[in-house]
């Protein structure tokens, strides 16, 4: 009897947790299916080459054109720019925090990084809009500061926490013996960190970069507030529109084919993110099998 009740409870609890676990899976499936179903019709109507390679987006014009190449390139350039600015800073910070910093500095800086990760993106956008955009206008003497550059700077700061934290974790996981051996052979601490620790943690650091890419390419709110949102081909000081902001800025008033095309943009963005996730998984798996 007792064993039976125990089993019953065990089964019930198991069932409940299974259902809760399936909620996530169901959400992912639902979103994927929904995006594909609502994203395909517009691509069919516009034609895939016209949609992906068209250079002009004029969704509400009398003769609308739905080319999203400017958005794709902007997202790619913007993310690449954020990585170029953000990764060196984040990587060096991670090496410093994981290996060189004394305990007190480390505690303070790690706290600050966590805080940075917790700041809502709309706040990044607001500060960017009020400080960065007028700043760029004055410093570079351009008519308007809302530009790709402003978005890149905001994104670079936004991806710092993920890069620092993930790189730090993987640097800290490097076995102490490796470093001791290197030091015993006469290498200086700095040589040891860059020649031994960093190579040993390289797939973790690569994962950190990919995570940063994912965060940057998916960000909408902050870039919407600083990038100007005109559907131009990307240029550093030109007002630009990202894949994310293209969806977000027109969704509320859209209708008909325009709305369907927005779903198609979301689908393209979704595929980008999927690709990034797959890369991330690949890197992490390789990390595990390596050691």
């Amino acid at each position, binding site marked *: 009897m007792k064993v039976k*009740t*125990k089993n019953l*409870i065990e089964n*019930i*609890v198991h069932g*409940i947790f299974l259902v809760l676990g399936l909620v996530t899976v169901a959400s992912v499936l639902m979103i994927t299916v929904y995006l594909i179903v609502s994203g395909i019709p517009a691509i069919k109507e516009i034609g895939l080459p016209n949609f992906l390679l068209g250079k002009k987006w*004029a*969704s*509400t*014009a*009398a003769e609308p054109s739905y080319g999203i190449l400017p958005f794709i390139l902007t997202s790619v350039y913007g993310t690449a720019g954020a990585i170029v600015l953000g990764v060196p800073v984040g990587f060096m910070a991670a090496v410093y925090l994981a290996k060189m910093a004394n305990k007190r500095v480390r505690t303070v800086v790690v706290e600050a990084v966590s805080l940075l990760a917790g700041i809502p993106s709309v706040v990044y956008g607001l500060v960017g*809009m*009020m400080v960065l*955009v*007028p700043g760029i*206008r004055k410093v570079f003497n351009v*008519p*308007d*500061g*809302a530009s790709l550059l402003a978005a890149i700077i905001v994104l670079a700061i936004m991806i710092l926490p993920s890069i620092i934290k993930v790189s730090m974790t993987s640097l800290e996981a490097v076995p102490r013996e490796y470093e001791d051996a290197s030091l015993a052979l006469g290498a200086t601490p700095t040589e040891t960190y860059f020649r031994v620790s960093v190579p040993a943690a390289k797939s973790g650091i690569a994962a950190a970069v990919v995570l940063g890419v994912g965060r940057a390419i998916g960000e909408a709110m902050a870039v*919407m*507030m600083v990038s*100007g*949102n*005109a*559907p131009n081909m990307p240029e550093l000081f030109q*007002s630009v*529109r990202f894949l994310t902001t293209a969806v*977000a*800025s*027109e969704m*509320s*008033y*859209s*209708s008909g084919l*325009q709305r369907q095309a927005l779903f198609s943009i979301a689908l393209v963005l979704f595929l980008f993110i999927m690709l990034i996730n797959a890369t991330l998984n690949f890197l992490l798996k390789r990390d595990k099998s390596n050691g």
Partner: protein
Amino acid sequence: MKKLISLVLAALMALTLFAACGKSDNGGTTDNNDNAEVTGTVSTDGSTSMEKVIMSLGEAFQADNKGITVGYNPTGSGSGITAVSEGRCDIGLASRALKDDEKASGLKETVLALDGIAIIVNPENKVSDLSIEQIAKIYTGEITNWKDVGGADAEIVLIGREAGSGTRDGFESITDTKDACKYRQELTSTGDVITTVAGNPNAIGYASLASVKDTVKALSVGGVAPTEATVSDGTYAVQRPFVLVTKDGTELSAAAQKFFEYATGAAAADVISAAGAVPVAK
């Protein structure tokens, strides 16, 4: 002990599930309670430009009709029109006249008020008057420097709204610049436009007259300053209607009907003008 805890937890979870179901059921039934006593909710959905007007009307209306709640969902003119045609709200709000195909689909428009669209520049800007033609030329990129219209020697920065916005549609159709505007920035709210223009001495933008603040300067158009009087008598050219959209042939709920009558009646005129728009009800 552990067993007991997990059992209690499981029971609690099951209960919350049921509780959630129960709640939504209740929500469904109260909606149908539109009996003799007029109580209930009026849902309005649409133009973000109409927020101030509808919120003020809603507040004034609720003060006299305790049982009725007026809800407002700021989604945009297009979404509001879709919502009313799909029956998702009682009254749709549009800051433009209905298009012919929308009227053909069985929707009815009632003009609630007129709204002037102010052409705004930074207070530092020396220019204080532009003609409609000049505005059109500026926005289509024919005039790109402020010195050509009497201002400082600086490039004009065009600020506008996103495609589909009622304000943008209103502005572009009035200035006849549809699809031809060379925006430097396309922002998603009136507030963003005002903030951006206030922050850039070379910017020009447009925003609902009701929302314009002291941080920007509203230009006069063809010598006529944008005020309630000039909008109402039609001399200020850049203006558009605020429209209540209903389904033709479908009766409103008692509460919605009462609100509709109040909003279009003479009593609401003061509230509408206090909110910055120009009432049309006589």
